[in-house]
């Protein structure tokens, strides 16, 4: 094991509060990532302070709307735009909202699209 990594599950409503706690404790936002697990979507918010790595795990249903953390961590806008474009996660109040023009993929929300979708949907926006 190279390093200890802790993961804390967090609810949709506590998200902003917990993130701002991290912010006030001087954590830096390392990354936000999304995993599509069929019927749910898992979002990891990773923080780091003095090489201590901590994760928040938020589980949402597809189509559920969540709050943007870019108000607290400005740099989150990039991750959130990515999530909303690739996974179709609805995120409210992103400071710089590309509105689906971040990567401009050939397939809309490729990570949740099924194989058949991909073939039929040319995805031109």
């Amino acid at each position, binding site marked *: 094991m190279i390093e200890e990594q802790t993961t804390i599950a967090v609810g949709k409503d506590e998200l902003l509060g917990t993130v701002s706690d991290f912010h006030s404790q001087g954590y830096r936002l390392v990354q936000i990532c999304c995993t599509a697990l069929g019927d749910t979507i898992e979002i990891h918010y990773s923080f780091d302070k003095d090489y201590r790595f901590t994760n928040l795990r938020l589980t949402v249903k597809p189509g559920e709307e969540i709050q943007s953390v870019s108000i607290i961590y400005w740099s989150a806008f990039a991750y959130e735009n990515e999530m909303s474009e690739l996974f179709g996660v609805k995120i409210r109040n992103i400071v710089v909202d*590309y*509105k*689906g*023009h971040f990567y*401009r993929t050939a397939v809309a929300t490729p990570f949740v699209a099924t194989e058949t979708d991909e073939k039929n949907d040319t995805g031109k*926006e």
Partner: protein
Amino acid sequence: METIIFLIIFPAAISLVLLSIPVKSVRRLIAVIANIALIAGTIHLLYGSAGETIRYELENVWIERAMLTLEVTLSIYILYMGIRFRRYLVVFFTLLQLALLVHFEAFAIPAVPVAHNLFVDNFSIILALIIGIIGSFICLYAIGYIEEYHERHKESEDNRRFFFFLMYLFLSAMFGIVFSNNLKWIYFFWEITTICSFLLIKYHEDEESIDSAFSALTINLMGGLAFAAGISYAGIYAGTLELDRLIAEGGAYAVIPAALIAFAGLAKSAQLPFSSWLTKAMVAPTPVSALLHSSTMVKAGVYIIIKVAPALKGTLAAAMLSYIGGLTFLVASFIAISQSNAKKVLAYSTIANLGLVVACAGIGTNEAIWSAILLIVFHAVAKSLMFLCVGLIENKLSSKEIENMDFLIMEMPKVSAAMIIGISGMFLAPFGMLISKWATLKAFIDFNPVMAIILAYGSAATLFFWTKWMGKIITIKYGLKNREKVVSPWEWTTLAVLSFMTIGVCIIFPLLSSALIEPYIIELFGVSPSMDRFNIIIIMIIMLGLLTILPIALMYYAWLDKDYKRVGTYLGGANVDNVRFLGSLGAQRTADIRNYYLDGFFSEKKLYNYGLVTAVFLVILMLGVVVI
């Protein structure tokens, strides 16, 4: 002499006629006839009187009395205006002037004999040509302009009869200035131009116009006060009221009035400590700017400076004069870089060029005076053309901003062509201004290389702001609507005539020089500068080259050249079409391009303040040295 009197009286009479006739078409007819008469008059003068200076007696007590009465009436009017708008500085200056005048008229006048009240020499013929021809055409232009102006400015009162009254009255006063030998007469006409300017600036009657008008009035009254003081001094101590005698006598008594009159000239031609009024005066309707504030009235200032300069020759005051001119040229050229308002750029460029003339006058060598006169001619033609073009564009685009003139060549090709000629005329070889700048440079080097250095820097700045403006106009974009279909024939005529004149004066300049300027210089100095024949040939070759290559190449590109493929502009490969690109956030944007204004280096406020302080210092030095 009849021609002269005709030229002075006729416009004044026309102005009264225009004021009294209520029918528009009749007024127009009269104006056209009057303009033709004026032009004919000046040309007649050119053929009749060119050569030696001719002086005329015109002794008539009634003229003097009428002038005095008018002067006092005008002063009272100014007093009234000053009190009504609470400009107490104006009131103060007027009162002082009135006091000086009354004192002088009451006590000193009988003692001073005036032999010649009027005169004609080549210099005044040149100015008369400018006033007569350019002035007439500007008045023609104004007929078309004012129509559209009132369409655009529905809120302002339609006072166009009064407007034309003032324009023609002004022409009359200008003729008066250049033909009068009697200082008191000059002063009388001088004050009329001041008041015309005041009333024309505030024509729009909004707060900004009134403010600017009073600013112009205050400064010009200050100049007028100095003028009046100069006359009093000349009358009392030098014992003459004649311009030529005052200059010819020279000596200690002539220096003080000369310096005071030069001071008045500085104020009138908006040299540095006084330059603010001219830039503010740009709120006036554009023909006014063209006529009063670039081609004629401000020229009266430099005219009088050139006239009195010989009296100051060799004194420190003359050196100061040249430094004030040089400084004004430098500072105004620099400030013009940071301006985006077309009329302000023109105003600053006018100030700069007048600065050059003043500097030449201060130097006062034969070469310098020669180039000063050339400068006046070339500047008057090119600058009035520029102003009139801007006026037209302003009416069409409802904006004076240079940045709104992109693609003008596609929207208004003919106006743009006129404008390009005007701009080229202002700084580019082989046009006139460049020839005179060249002569000026030669004069400067022999006088004092510091001035040459100033000229080198200043003309570099000139190059920058003119070229970027020209670049803005000639940017080409397809698919734009032609917007010049509805320009009135009045305006077209004037633009065409002035464009051809800009080229014309350059082609005939050797003639102009040998027929009019050189005799004048020889009369003044005994010797005359002349350009190297080789250089004149070269300039003519460039001119001819341009006049042939340009149309041929344009025709080639317009009709003959078919062997090409059109592609889009380089936009980093993100083209959507020729000018638009796919930008961030999925938006299609147009590549928008603007000029540079280098505000960090040439900010108006900073430079103006520095210039103002230095110029005030120089003016104080100029007057102080004389008094001591």
